[in-house]
């Protein structure tokens, strides 16, 4: 390798490293230091959080909402992927419609969702017109509000799961389906013994990606219910910073969220690595 190539390689390594240090590492370290600073080094900020009932609600919701959201996304995404892949004649219109919720800017789709689910929104309008009773879809602290948040979050992100699963479905050789058909396998048996096992790498990838991403839920909750309606750790931290003017406590809440994402994300990655090794050994 000549000197110019070495210099170029050095630039390609140094520039991203400097960028990552300046934009990611230093702010994160600063945040960590702030979270332990309460007129000097202290655990005081964390202790205050533990005494706040809203923190515990935020923590619980931060586990409940992502789990619910990922389940809904996975079921819907898989159903859509199977439907769209099974069609003999592909329709650009239907595929575009399926991807649309992901293509629309988040704030637009969330504002739309708010108009749909608000007390005098479109959904309640439709229910009342149909002779049914209006429901408090976004009523603060209600289970229905949590369910609404899960549905809206899933609605927005289902297309990405669908696309990942569609990519996986398209890698399954047609001969396997043909062989299953010749062996007399029905639709369900084909799905269970051919599609699902062959799709497993794509499913694992989609669940890991969305599973980690869903933990960082923020704007869906903020727009639909405000920081107090269905609090999660990110909105709780935002509210501490913006409303309560308590940056140190806000940083402590953010650090707890970061820890949660790191632990759950790492365990999922560990699971994925084990799964790949096991599959490799089988192969």
């Amino acid at each position: 390798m000549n000197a110019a190539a070495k210099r170029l390689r050095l630039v390609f390594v140094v520039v991203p490293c400097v960028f990552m240090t300046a934009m990611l590492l230093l702010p994160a370290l600063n945040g960590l230091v702030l979270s332990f600073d309460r007129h000097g080094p202290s655990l005081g900020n964390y202790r205050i959080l533990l005494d706040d009932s809203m923190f515990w609600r935020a923590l619980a919701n931060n586990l409940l909402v992502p789990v619910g959201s990922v389940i809904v996304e996975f079921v819907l995404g898989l159903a859509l992927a199977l439907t769209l892949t099974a069609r003999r004649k592909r329709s650009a219109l239907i595929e575009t419609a399926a991807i649309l919720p992901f293509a629309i800017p988040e704030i637009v789709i969330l504002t739309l969702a708010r108009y749909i689910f608000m007390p005098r929104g479109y959904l309640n309008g439709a229910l009342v017109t149909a002779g049914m009773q209006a429901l408090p879809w976004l009523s603060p602290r209600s289970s229905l509000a949590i369910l609404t948040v899960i549905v809206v979050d899933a609605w927005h992100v289902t297309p990405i799961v669908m696309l990942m699963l569609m990519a996986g479905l398209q890698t399954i050789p047609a001969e396997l389906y043909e062989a299953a058909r010749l062996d007399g396998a029905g639709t369900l048996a084909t799905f269970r013994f051919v599609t699902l096992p062959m799709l497993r790498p794509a499913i694992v990838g989609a669940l890991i990606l969305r599973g980690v991403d869903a933990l960082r839920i923020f704007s869906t909750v903020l727009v639909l219910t405000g920081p107090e309606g269905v609090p999660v750790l990110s909105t709780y931290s935002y509210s501490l910073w913006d409303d309560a003017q308590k940056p140190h406590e806000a940083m402590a809440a953010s650090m707890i969220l970061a820890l949660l994402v790191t632990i759950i994300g790492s365990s999922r990655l560990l699971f994925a690595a084990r799964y790949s090794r096991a599959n490799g050994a089988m192969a």
Partner: protein
Amino acid sequence: MHLLGPSKRSLFLALAVLLAGCRAAPAPEQLNIALAVFPDEAARYDRFVADFESQHHVRVNVLTQTYTDILQAMRVQAASRGSLDLVELDLAMLGEAHDYAQPLDRIVSPSARALFSNEAWNAATIDHRLYFIPHRQMWQAMIYNRVEVPNPPATWDDLARFAREHPGRLAIKGARYEGAVCDVMPFVWTAGGTECEPNSPGSIRALDFMRQLAPDLNDESAVFREMSVLEAQARGSVWIHFNWPFAIAYLQSKGLAPNVNLSAPIPAGPDGRATPLGGGYLAIPNSAPHAKLAAEFIQYLLTADTQSKLSRDLGWYGTVPPPTGTEDAQLYSGYTAMRPFVRARPTVDCYADLSDQWRRAIRGVLFEDAAPASAIAASVLKAADRCDCAENASGEL
């Protein structure tokens, strides 16, 4: 031998003269003002400052930010250099922000002081020094749906009766933010309590009254803020709430005031009426690059003519009420009626902490059915002790 012929020399001479003539005039000084205004207000403010720009040959650059971001920018500017010359801050932030602001006693004349109430100046005075200038004084009033509520509640009893008879139609801004304090504190004050004496009989009595209202409040009160409660009022799901003057301007812009909604005084309590002083205060940051120019701008603002222009151009009626007989006079009648009852929250360093604890107590009483005394004991008492705000609250000059 000449390098250039006479015609070329003339040409170059003409070009040189032309270039000298075209040389850019020295850039006018720029005054950077950070304001927490809505985009349409910023556009009107730009037009409002045109007079000052032409009089002083400067350019005024209005930067719109939230109060929180402005305070953060001020903190950063205090630790290093920055470009902000003048900043607008929320009243609730003055206690903390005075560390980063220049004293302004010398630039405020006695005639300028007459423009705003003593209450407004006292809130801007810390340790007997003036650090802030009232920019747009405002206060809350009751917004009511005049179609559904022809006779708005005038007393606590009326309000309690309204809530009972129309469940869900009365709303409080109960999100865990300063708005909750602004909605509840008038009740505390008019019962004889204060934020600095949370366990006084008056404070407990006011929270008892709020607890009485709680079951009939609109469901979304726990998350309502200024804009969301206003949206609910505009949609007709809320008939009564308390808000700042911009609310009535918003309803008017939607064609929903004065024909559907109007303002009225906040219902009177045992000790009469009260409303929280709010709005923006101006400060010159410690390291403002154009502090002298900023001071001149403040002096420009603090004249009767400029204040009239502010009310006319921006609809900010803090100093000059709307002319009688106009539609604005009808729209803002509730605000005008509350003018003598404006009261400031304490300007103390620890206000953010004290207020946060009050919010928790208020939410405990309103949404968790906590007894006022225990809700206060659980949070506000310690904060009030830490703060010692009865002693440290802003003093008069």
